């Protein structure tokens, strides 16, 4: 279904921040903001919910730690015990210090990689995906704020011009 949206372009992040705060103060819902670089504090100004990616990161770390423990137990103790440096691999616990670097590395590896993949999926970014970016200039030096229009086109346009937008346009958007 196509929906009508209004898009305002800004050329300064400070102006954008004030605009976002003002639009929110007027109780309009901001659909999305496109910026060429991360703007500090924009998520809070837009009222976005806190990210839960840290929780997934913790769980992935636990998974990595478990994989490392089980893997080293299988490889070094059960499947093919060796005597390295006079320390025969008969007991997991007694050989454990040698496995700590592996536990650490796999914890970090799992946490980091799976977190990045989760982030991409959650942001709906996957290979061959068509860019959602409505205006090429937001990858260079412009900031774009997008609001849904519900029969209040003129009122919104006036408000956005007032907040210091350099361009305001109304378009249809596929969703």
């Amino acid at each position, binding site marked *: 279904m196509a929906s009508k949206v209004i898009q305002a372009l800004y050329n300064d992040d400070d102006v954008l921040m004030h605009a976002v705060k003002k639009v929110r103060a007027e109780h309009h819902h901001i659909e999305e903001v496109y910026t060429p670089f991360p703007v500090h504090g924009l998520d809070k100004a837009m009222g976005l919910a806190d990210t839960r990616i*840290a929780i997934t990161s*913790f769980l992935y770390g636990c998974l990595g730690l478990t994989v490392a423990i089980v893997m080293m137990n299988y490889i070094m103790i059960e499947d093919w015990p060796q005597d390295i*440096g*006079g*320390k025969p691999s008969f007991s997991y616990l007694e050989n454990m*210090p*040698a496995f*700590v*670097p592996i536990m650490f590395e796999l914890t970090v590896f799992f946490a980091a990689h799976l977190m990045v993949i989760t982030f991409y999926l959650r942001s709906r970014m996957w290979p061959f995906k068509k860019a959602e970016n409505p205006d090429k200039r937001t990858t260079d030096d412009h900031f774009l704020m997008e609001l849904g229009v519900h029969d209040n086109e003129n009122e919104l346009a006036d408000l956005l011009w007032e907040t210091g937008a350099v361009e305001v346009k109304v378009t249809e958007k596929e969703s």
Partner: protein
Amino acid sequence: MYTFSNKLRIGSFIAMGLGVIFLAIGFLSAPSTVEEAKAMVAAHDDGHGGGHAEAAETHGEEQGHGTEAAHGEEHDASHDTHLLHQLQNRPWSALYVAAFFFFMIALGVLAFYAVQRAAQAGWSPLLFRVMEGITAYLVPGGIIVFVILLLSTLHMNHMFVWMDAETVAHDELLQGKAGYLNPTFFLIRAAIFLGGWIFYRQYSRKLSLAQDESDDNSNFVKNFRWSAAFLVFYLISESMMSWDWIMSLDPHWFSTLFGWYVFASMFVSGITVIAMVTVYLKSKGYLEQVNDSHVHDLAKFMFGISIFWTYLWFSQFMLIWYADIPEEVTYYIARFQDYKLPFFGMLVMNFVFPLLVLMNSDYKRVNWFVIMTGIVVLLGHYLDIFNMVMPATVGDQWYIGLPEIGGILFFGGLFVFWVFTALTKAPLQPKRNPFIEESRHFHY
């Protein structure tokens, strides 16, 4: 201006008084003859079976008595004197561990402060007066540690075996190290280290106060230069200090990253104390400008440096465990056999606990949470110093009893008294630090 609350002052005096009494009991109940020492251990051993004999052998070797042990009949006699020395060392070691621990906190804070100055950090200037207050303890704390070391060289105790000429005469390894490990040079080095640290502390404090009254930033710039120079001096002298004051308790053993390991311990303890004093002052209505983001940052440092400490602890342990060289593993065997609880308990308190508790970003902003974690981390790092000193000085005759608790109470009381007195001497918020605006608006 901060005024020292009466309750806290009286509390610190009570702690010091109790500490002195406990320490005195510890010193008075130490045996003075071999017979007394044997009687004490016999009474103790009734409950513990024969665990002592086995462990004593390990210690004999570790402390450089190994060569004497080969002499057959002298064997028993040397063990008995050894036992006497261990029991006599106990109150001294308790005193030394506590004195060093609180001194180390002040030194760790001084390093953190110098890092903030040298990096020209924008978030921390609001906390500078708190840090300067804590580093004030460097003067009495350093002097006390120096006096203990001086008394050791005068043979008031047997903590440092290499100070005993008789032991060195029978020990090739110690003769080889005598050019560095001899009482005179030892004291000269200690005086240089302490002199350098105390000089920087006093001078930086003077510049910090002068900056408030001046109308340009020259004092600030000077402080920046001195802090950078101090860090170079500190990193070298701190490392050597840890070899001298702690590692030389086991003069046969050495670890190349010992200096870093002690540094991590003092750094995390220092940062923890900054966080605790800050939260305390805030709870009393001072430091209005300090917000949750400052506490959050300090808690992040507590979390990060705790993990750094564990990294160093494990690196030191794993290399020695893997190589399995007899000269090196005795250090850990003594700790595994006789110090199981403090040794592994410290790992839980210094690593597992802060890791799990401080991982969540929101918890680092909850002030009482930071205080509770801080108490555990401080106790854990006291145990860390305990584990570094005690196995060499008292062997398996350790116990956390009156002298140990007395040491903590006395130096804890002195620390609180000195630090909070120093905090009353200047306004808690610097006026003219060029970064003070940035610090006030600090928001993560």
